[in-house]
């Protein structure tokens, strides 16, 4: 009996019980789709995190004062700007930041970060100005009250109108909007990266924070590759300039580096992906048990049919091939539909994450489900085909 004939028998066998075949395929479909989609969601969120950190700028260092000490003084900031001791540092931007309420014609908006810094901050913090212009060094020197606002702030205070040129009030002081920042993806996911305002350092100190120490100093390295060099140079200068306070063992400042941040975040995201993968693996297992169950039932139920076929002179090999072909078709069809479902599903945003398909997860899910289908389709069929026809016929 030719293989083609056996395949035709298999197709007829599948068609003879559409509901059961459909349910088997559905089980495989769900298992496969769940694995691929969950892994894609994990992968997507990992990529999202990486993208956000990338957006922060990968060639900057942030020096932050810790422990409430007045460490980051103008003298320290000046010292970092040293072409001899710190040749890889291209810009130093001291930062003061505070929360403030902006008012424009009776509309209030509490901005999360009201930043005072130098014009170099825009480049260092990877915040390009979209409309209007950034303030200048001259503005900083003169302490002019101009401000560049983030997209969220512009949308809140000036809905539908141009923000540039408008005057808003910050804690009683008038600031003129000179620019609006480009929209930026939110770095941490908890804070809106577009909810900020940047003004000249001197103006912010005058009106809001006073002339204390800086909150942080953003240091820009010559390139991403030079970040590590710049970091060691900065840390050398700081260790000379800043005294470790008595009774403390750690330095009163911390140097953060975007690529370090990227690393930790990527690790977190990897853990997340592993977790989702585990959940997906469990669903594949459950799906697999479903397949196993239905295959066992199918073959057991058809033991009598196998007996009839044997009584009519079907050799064991032909019966086995037929059942194996049926199981293969069901598994492949179900698996293929599962892949299709996952591919369609990955086009939608799931819980705020755009899934990114991992090709190996498709192969894995497909292989596992097909293997389960084949194994549990063929083992009981083999057992039944080995029975003497009379035992198979009498099987209840």
């Amino acid at each position, binding site marked *: *009996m*030719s293989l083609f*004939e056996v395949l035709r*028998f298999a197709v*007829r066998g599948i068609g*003879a*019980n559409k509901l059961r075949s459909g349910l088997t395929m559905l089980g495989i479909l769900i298992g496969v789709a769940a694995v691929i989609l969950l892994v894609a969601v994990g992968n997507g969120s990992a990529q999202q995190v990486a993208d956000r950190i990338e957006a922060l700028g990968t060639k900057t260092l942030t020096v932050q004062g810790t422990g409430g000490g007045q460490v980051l003084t103008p003298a320290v900031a000046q010292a970092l700007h040293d072409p001899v001791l710190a040749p890889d540092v291209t810009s130093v931007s001291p930062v003061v930041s505070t929360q403030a309420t902006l008012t424009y014609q009776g509309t209030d908006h509490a901005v999360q970060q009201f930043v005072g810094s130098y014009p170099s901050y825009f480049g260092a913090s990877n915040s390009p100005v979209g409309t209007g212009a950034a303030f200048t060094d001259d503005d900083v020197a003169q302490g002019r009250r101009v401000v560049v606002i983030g997209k969220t702030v512009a949308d809140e205070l000036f809905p539908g109108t141009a923000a540039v040129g408008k005057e808003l009030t910050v804690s009683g002081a008038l600031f003129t909007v000179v620019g609006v920042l480009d929209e930026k993806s939110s770095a941490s996911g908890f804070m809106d990266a577009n909810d900020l305002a940047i003004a000249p350092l001197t103006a912010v100190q005058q009106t809001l924070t006073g002339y204390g120490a800086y909150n942080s100093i953003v240091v820009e390295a010559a390139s991403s590759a030079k970040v590590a060099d710049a970091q060691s140079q900065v840390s050398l200068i700081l260790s000379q300039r800043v005294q470790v306070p008595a009774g403390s063992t750690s330095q009163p400042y911390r140097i953060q580096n975007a690529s370090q941040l990227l690393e930790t975040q990527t690790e977190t995201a990897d853990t997340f992906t592993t977790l989702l993968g585990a959940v997906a693996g469990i669903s594949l297992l459950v799906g697999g048990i479903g397949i196993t169950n239905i295959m066992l039932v199918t073959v057991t139920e058809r033991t*009598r*049919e196998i*007996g*009839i*076929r*044997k*009584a*009519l*002179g*079907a*050799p*064991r*090999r*032909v019966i086995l091939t037929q059942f194996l072909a049926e199981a293969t078709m069901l598994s492949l069809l179900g698996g293929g539909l599962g892949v299709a479902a996952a591919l369609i599903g990955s086009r939608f945003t799931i819980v705020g994450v755009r899934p990114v398909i991992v090709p190996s997860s498709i192969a894995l899910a497909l292989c596992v489900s097909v293997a389960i289908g084949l194994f549990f389709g063929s083992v009981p069929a083999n057992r039944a085909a080995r029975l*003497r*026809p*009379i035992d198979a*016929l009498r099987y209840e």
Partner: protein
Amino acid sequence: MTVLDIRAVTKVYGEGAATVHALRGVSLDVEPGEYVAIMGSSGSGKSTLMNILGCLDIPTAGRYLLDGVDVSRLNDRQLALVRNRRIGFVFQSFNLIPRTTAVANVELPLAYAGVKAAERRRRALVALDMVGLADRAGHEPNQLSGGQQQRVAVARALVTEPALVLADEPTGNLDSRSTEDILRIFDDLHAAGRTIVLITHETDVAARASRLIRLFDGQIASDVQQDRILA
């Protein structure tokens, strides 16, 4: 040449205290063209004998020659071939493949014999016509009456033109009219020279055979040639 030749066949089921001697040494020859009815009470071993004759089961001891071939020495594949080519089996409970049309059921043995699809269809339809069911070829078993199902099963047993037609209480599940239909087909087969072995416990069915064998307790109690009573 004898179609069937069994010598001192025994069949033992189970082990130890649960041992059942279903056949205790049965010897039997069947010549071509004979119409043999086997009768016996329940537990006399007639079904066991039939299963052994049909190569569905193997004897514990003894020799079985079918068409001169010792089937006890055949492997699984050769046995499948024998079942396919030499034997047509009709079961009490029809044993059609569910959700499969009558003609596909009849084609099945031919498919396993490797007959091409077109030829298979033609021969299956001829066999169905022979049992008077040509117009029901496209029906599935659950759309057919018991008698019609059994006629499909008979067509399936005949389609390979086997040396031996075995029928295990073929009328056991049928009403009198369907029984008559089936028996008439067997009469026609006998008239056409086919060898038939049939199990029954109905005397009027047995009466139509040319030879009557009674089994008792796993042994042949009587074996007589008889004049066929034609209804």
